[in-house]
């Protein structure tokens, strides 16, 4: 049975690192948008894999090889179900960044021409900007960005205008901003893009949304969905490209080597079927198994419950930060419009100083451009301070955040 609300204290017991202290104070970990912590079941599954099973996948006939393959493919199935994808369309990569690079190189580069537009947005993480820039000179397409409004949302009028050209072949957008938390109307935008050009594909950067929101590729109307394991309670080194099997079938491989072939002669190679065509070399096996366990963990809590818990944290944190003097909270105020990554500024105090002082209070936040320089620039700054929450954060930790902000102000005003 799925719980209505999360028992945060029980959840916290599953995360060993949350028990530690930092500078003599209990750790208040508010940097999950950068990477999440890992629960004991995920750690255990990976340790057990190395202790009891460890073998390479797909090629062996011995018992361990079969068990390893089974565990690896079972993880693929769980992850596919988690986002409503066909398991054959679930490609294991290193991270979201690699997934987007794969699409830029294997889908966009050989297909797009000068008349085509790749439409990204100014809200994107660099991972959804730079890969397109890298292939742009060769393919010659027009790389455009949906601008932002003053409230850090996508400018839908500008979007409509670019889409109305009918030239958008790739629309690539984050489902949730890693800086200002904005949740984008992906499905609505996708349908407009398709209405204007039925050959267009829709790519969704789900690095922030998949860990925090119930996700269904069909509901998102996405052809491809990219996300990372380490932001959703899984290990580093494993990411996912989930996509339409027919499109993946037509694509050239991104990396070449072992595993991705069906036959190799010195003259040429025939490629393996999807998804293996895109998984050259020994894949991150234990990491895939770990991500499968992370998906189990999230399913057990329930993604609706995860989201509800974060809304509850936002309902407290946003007004609390807003009420503080000299503090500006970027992005939407209403919790339903946003995820639990909150960027803020304290007038007259640089984010790096804020981050350092808050660290001494035990509060781990991130300071900088969050790999989204174009967006951060629109906030009128080179950097912000970001507090980001997850399933293991408590309402008391919102108080700790507020206290740390006040302590920072006192420190520089003394």
């Amino acid at each position: 049975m799925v719980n209505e609300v999360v028992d945060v204290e029980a959840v916290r017991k599953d995360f060993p690192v949350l028990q530690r202290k930092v500078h003599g104070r209990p750790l208040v970990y508010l940097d999950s948008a950068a990477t999440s912590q890992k629960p004991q079941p995920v750690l255990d599954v990976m340790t057990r894999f190395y202790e009891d099973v460890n073998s390479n996948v797909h090629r062996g006939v011995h018992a361990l090889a079969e068990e390893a393959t089974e565990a690896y493919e079972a993880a693929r199935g769980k992850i596919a179900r988690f986002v409503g994808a066909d398991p054959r369309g679930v490609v294991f990569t290193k991270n979201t960044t690699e997934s987007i690079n794969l699409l830029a190189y294997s889908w966009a580069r050989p297909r797009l021409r000068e008349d085509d537009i790749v439409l990204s947005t100014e809200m994107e993480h660099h991972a959804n900007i730079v890969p397109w820039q890298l292939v742009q000179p060769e393919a010659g397409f027009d790389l455009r960005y949906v601008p932002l409004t003053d409230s850090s949302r996508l400018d839908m009028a500008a979007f409509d205008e670019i889409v109305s050209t009918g030239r958008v072949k790739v629309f690539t957008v984050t489902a949730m901003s890693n800086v200002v938390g904005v949740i984008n109307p992906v499905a609505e935008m996708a349908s407009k893009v398709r209405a204007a050009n039925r050959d267009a594909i829709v790519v969704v950067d789900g690095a922030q949304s998949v860990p925090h929101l119930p996700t269904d590729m069909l509901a998102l109307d996405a052809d491809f969905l990219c996300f990372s394991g380490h932001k959703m309670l899984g290990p580093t080194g494993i990411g996912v490209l989930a996509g339409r099997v027919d499109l993946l079938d037509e694509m050239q491989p991104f990396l070449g080597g072992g595993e991705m072939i069906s036959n190799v002669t010195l003259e040429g190679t025939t490629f393996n079927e999807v998804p293996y065509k895109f998984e050259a070399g020994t894949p991150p096996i234990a990491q895939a198994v770990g991500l499968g366990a992370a998906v189990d963990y999230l399913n057990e809590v329930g993604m609706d419950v995860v989201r509800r818990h974060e809304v509850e944290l936002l309902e407290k944190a946003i007004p609390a930060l807003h009420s503080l003097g000299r503090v500006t909270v970027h992005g939407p105020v209403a919790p339903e419009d946003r995820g639990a990554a909150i960027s803020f500024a304290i007038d007259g105090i640089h984010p790096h100083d804020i981050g350092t002082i808050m660290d001494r209070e035990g509060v781990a936040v991130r300071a900088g451009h969050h790999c989204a320089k174009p967006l951060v620039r629109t906030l009128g700054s080179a950097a912000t301070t970001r507090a980001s929450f997850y399933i293991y954060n408590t309402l008391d930790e919102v108080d700790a955040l507020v206290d740390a902000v006040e302590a920072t102000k006192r420190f520089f005003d003394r």
Partner: protein
Amino acid sequence: MALDDLYQEIILDHYRTPRHRSADLDGHDVHVHHSNPLCGDELDLRLRVADDKVDGLAYDGDGCSISMASASAMSEAVIGRTLSDADDLAEVFRLMMHGEGLKREDDLLDGVAFQGVAKFPVRVKCALLGWMALKDAIATYRGGSQEHRVTHE
């Protein structure tokens, strides 16, 4: 490793009451722009040279307290010195920040207070920004140029 090592009162004083911080400098001979793209610190430094000496210096920028306070302390320490002497002092400061000993303690003036920053490796480049801009301004001037932009990796 206490927070006060990083934010000594002298440093906070320079942060709150910056010396020679200005967006312009009358009759400057060289202007350099330095940035730390990873943390977003930006610094403009203008230098006026007379008789091969630092006749005037002004800096301005957008950065953390350490970077701005360090530039402020630097300006006090080098105005009036010959270019070679100022350049040498910048090297002394750089070595101090990398934990390679302290020389010319008296000449660094308040710059000595930044010794504690060396214990916070991620902040060392903040403290160095102004001094590296100074070295570059001197080299740019000597090379006969008036403008130089540097991005620190």
